[in-house]
């Protein structure tokens, strides 16, 4: 058996800044993940369809536009609606500290702000996926 973690990195909404998503994509690739990058300007519906077709373990959402408080919970909600809530969601981007607790409450598992070392994201993802696989 050759199980590889598969991650969808998504850019929902209208902002066009994907340098951060690409840096994370590269770090995950170098850590042995299979990374599907959505490209820019996706809707939550599109991302959830892609995540289901690709049978990923998780979705990472990168948002700089300020619309995270709608877009992130919406992805979580649609996954549940489609019977795919075992696909977990994490996020990053420009997200004010006070916005983080409500996002976590809505089912986003973690938020990584600007300046997070990529190694921290990699280690967290591995641990999270492993704990879910053995749960």
């Amino acid at each position: 058996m050759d199980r590889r973690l598969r991650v969808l990195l998504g850019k929902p909404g209208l902002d066009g800044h994907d340098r951060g998503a690409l840096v994370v994509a590269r770090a995950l690739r170098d850590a042995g993940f299979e990374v599907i990058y959505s490209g820019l300007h996706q809707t939550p519906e599109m991302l959830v369809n892609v995540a289901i077709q690709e049978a990923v373990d998780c979705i990472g959402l990168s948002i700089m536009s300020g619309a995270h408080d709608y877009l992130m919970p919406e992805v979580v909600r649609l996954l549940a609606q489609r019977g795919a809530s075992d696909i977990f969601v994490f996020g990053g981007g420009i997200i004010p500290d006070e916005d983080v607790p409500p996002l976590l409450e809505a089912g986003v598992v973690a938020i990584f702000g600007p300046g997070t070392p990529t190694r921290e994201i990699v280690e967290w993802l591995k641990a999270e996926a492993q704990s879910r696989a053995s749960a």
Partner: protein
Amino acid sequence: MTHAPSLHSRAQRVLAGETIAAARLIRDVDDRREAARADLRELFPHVGKAHIIGVTGSPGVGKSSLVDALITEWRARGKTVAVVAVDPSSPFTGGAILGDRIRMQTHSLDPGVFIRSVASRGFLGGLSPSIDEIVLVFDAMGFDVILVETVGVGQGEVDIIRSSHTTLVVLSPNSGDDVQGLKAGLLEVADIFVVNKADLPGADRTRTMLKRMVNLGQGALRDPGWAIPTRSTSTTQGTPEERGIAALVDACVEHRDHLRGGPGLAERNASRLRSYVLRLAGEGLAGRLEKALLAHPDLAELERGETDPYAVANALIGTVTHEDL
């Protein structure tokens, strides 16, 4: 062993068109999980309807954009389309960036389109070890057309011809002179040539090179009755006629009809099955040979120089061939 399908087996859900069941089966196939085998056996009797089309060519010639345009055209003709897009895995970490579907975003909400990105996972030849099984799943689901996009290939990665009915070899303008056209490998395996980015300078030269090459021989090597057509396409510039996508789909349909009208289809299906079985058997044997070798008494002799690799290899084959896969 019997395989009576239970009402809610995963295979039954796949046959009923459940995306989530199919996607997860493909994941298990790709991870080489034992659990996938029973489902695949249950799906196997349902295959045989799809037209399987390989799309291959060097990195950057526009395979993914072309696949995107082909999906649109086939959907306009009322056909459902599945895509398997292969990208390379890192030889160092096994990781991969699967970026082909970025070019196919417009189809992500269309229920008649299923796109799956696959990493090559160390498999040489431009495909992935699980390609035939993934195609099997899509075929059993009833997709009319299955497009298999290979990794960007060099001159020699031509395994796609053993997994598809029709192979498109995609080139971009200025891809070399007549001698390039004579070389063995990639250019030999085309059923249809596509000069993509035909709006760019140099497209005419590439087209001429291909036509001269085709005219030097007598039809396709595998199929002398088929005159290999060359189609020019652009996915960014021009009127629909100038973009040439409909004409390319017409050529694919003509090739399928040509295969159906003669022995071609049966031959290619037989060749696909042989290659599938060999891949399965080889995979099963390789694992067993490795295990048997480590436990083999002759290994110590070999390390002391008292026997040779040929003798040990023969002995090893003898020890594993009497078990069931």
